[in-house]
């Protein structure tokens, strides 16, 4: 495990999504990479992400969604964060975040418009997310 880098992440699976395994793998991978991780588990609401990010003074929120309703679940997240005083906080989303097979370029564009800083397609290895987290948070 890399030495702690002092950066704090809040992660979880948003909405009525009960995919419990992937988020554990992400938690493990992020910890190994030196992050301080608060894993909220499955079926996490926007408010829970925000409450946890406030209390833990998180440096980023990483949202996972695997059941296709991610777009609905994530709508308004950035606005709520702004309201809660978390404006500018790094916000990622990844997984099977939309229904069916859609062109990822369009999907990414839509999520960018919703205020997400980075959007990851299905099958993204944790290393890639870690690479961008470190880059965006100025680690190393």
């Amino acid at each position, binding site marked *: 495990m890399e030495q702690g880098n002092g950066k704090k992440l809040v992660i979880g699976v948003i909405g*009525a999504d*009960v995919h419990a395994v992937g988020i554990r793998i992400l938690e493990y991978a992020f910890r190994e990479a030196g992050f*301080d991780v608060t894993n*909220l588990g499955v079926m996490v609401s926007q408010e829970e992400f925000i*409450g946890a990010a*406030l209390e*833990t003074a*998180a440096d980023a929120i990483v949202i996972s969604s695997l059941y296709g309703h991610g777009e609905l679940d994530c709508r308004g997240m950035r606005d709520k964060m702004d309201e809660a005083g978390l404006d500018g906080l790094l916000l990622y989303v990844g997984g099977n975040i939309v229904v069916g097979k859609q062109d990822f370029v369009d999907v990414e564009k839509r999520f960018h418009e919703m205020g997400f800083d980075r959007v990851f397609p299905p099958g993204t290895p944790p290393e890639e997310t870690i690479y961008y987290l470190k880059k965006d948070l100025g680690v190393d």
Partner: protein
Amino acid sequence: MHYALLIDFGSTFTKVTAVDLISEEIVGTASAFTTVDSDIGTGLNVALDRLRRVTGDIAFEFKSACSSAAGGLRMMVSGLVPELTAEAARLAALGAGARITRLFTHELTRRDLIAIEADPPDIFLMTGGTDGGNRACMEKNAEKLRSLSVQFPIILAGNRQAIDACEDALADFPVTVCPNVMPSFGVLNIEPVQREIRDLFLKHIVNARGLSKTKKILSDILMPTPSAILSAMKLLADGTEKETGIGELMGIDVGGATTDVYTIARGEPVDMNVICKGLDEPYAKRTVEGDIGMRYSVAGIVSEVGQSWISERSGLTADDCATYISELSDDKSKVPLTHDDALARFDHALASGAVEIATRRHAGVLEEAFTTSGLIYVQTGKDLRSVRQIIFTGGSFIHAQSPLDIARHALYTERYPMSLRPKQATVLRDDRYILSAMGVLAEREKDIALRIIKRELVPLGDISLGDDS
């Protein structure tokens, strides 16, 4: 000298209980009006004279007291997020027997500071942030409190990284530091704070409240009354090494101004398809409903259940109900003269409403969520459906004619299937108001206190789901 004297300085009555420590019996109880404005010892002496008429002259091995006189232990608490550290702070203070006069979330405002200055608390509990998390909330609040012209003990129990700066800012206040009430997300750690609250109560509050005048006749004033009741309930549920307890339970005290609900229960989910959300729940939990009570808070009950509900359950017309509601707001000392007079029926409906609302607010709730893996339930709070005992204390219940009908309102019902209240229960009643006294006695004599509680509580019968509409 094998007697113990236990005193409960209440807001209205000072109650005294004499216990024979050898035969393990209550040899007498008495009460008198609390005289907190002059010398609290005056009322106590009247109560003791009355007790002596029952017990004769006996010498006491020790005299211990609890107190909720002069407004009880008045606390203000602050935290960051309402459902997280602020809630943890609230649970800590309530469980320690305090009355929360103000709860602040996020950063204190100028108006908040004016409110604090206008009516300073006995203790201020400041929390915010997980360990290593948000520091700004506590540090800024400490900086703001520093400017106040009043002082009071402050407990710092938030992000440990913020403690140094807070201590520096609050150098003029009596400050104590405790472990964080929520050290990491969702984890509740309130016992250390509760111990500290009790120490401060002994050191500062007792003196401030004119209770110290009684010191020469008392061995000690141990705790706020609600804390004594919670401790008696916990003893009754858990037992001691020598004496078994009766298992998980719920306790209800419908008072004139507030309604307290206690549960000694783990409340974990029982089914596989349940996911828990929110902060951990304390095993021994106390909630206080400040808007639900039989005299000072009638309006709160009526606005919650509706006037037609009261009218239906009391058998009184809507007009009669309205008359009582306004009469009781003018004259809080009105009591029914007989069991079947109209006020008694009105009180019956009020108490039922109080129990209904207070237990619903205390118990956990389920929410349905349809997921790709089928129906999942999300549980917030405690699942109390398997709790099998309900203890009632407090006058409104003790004097009620059909207590079981009132008690039924604490149960799970099909009307509120998501409210996780007990499905069936044996109802026990604290007929002689001994619970607070036994909570105090338990500080020295756990086994004796437990055996007395078990003997004194009167089983009224069993109630179960479906008994009532």
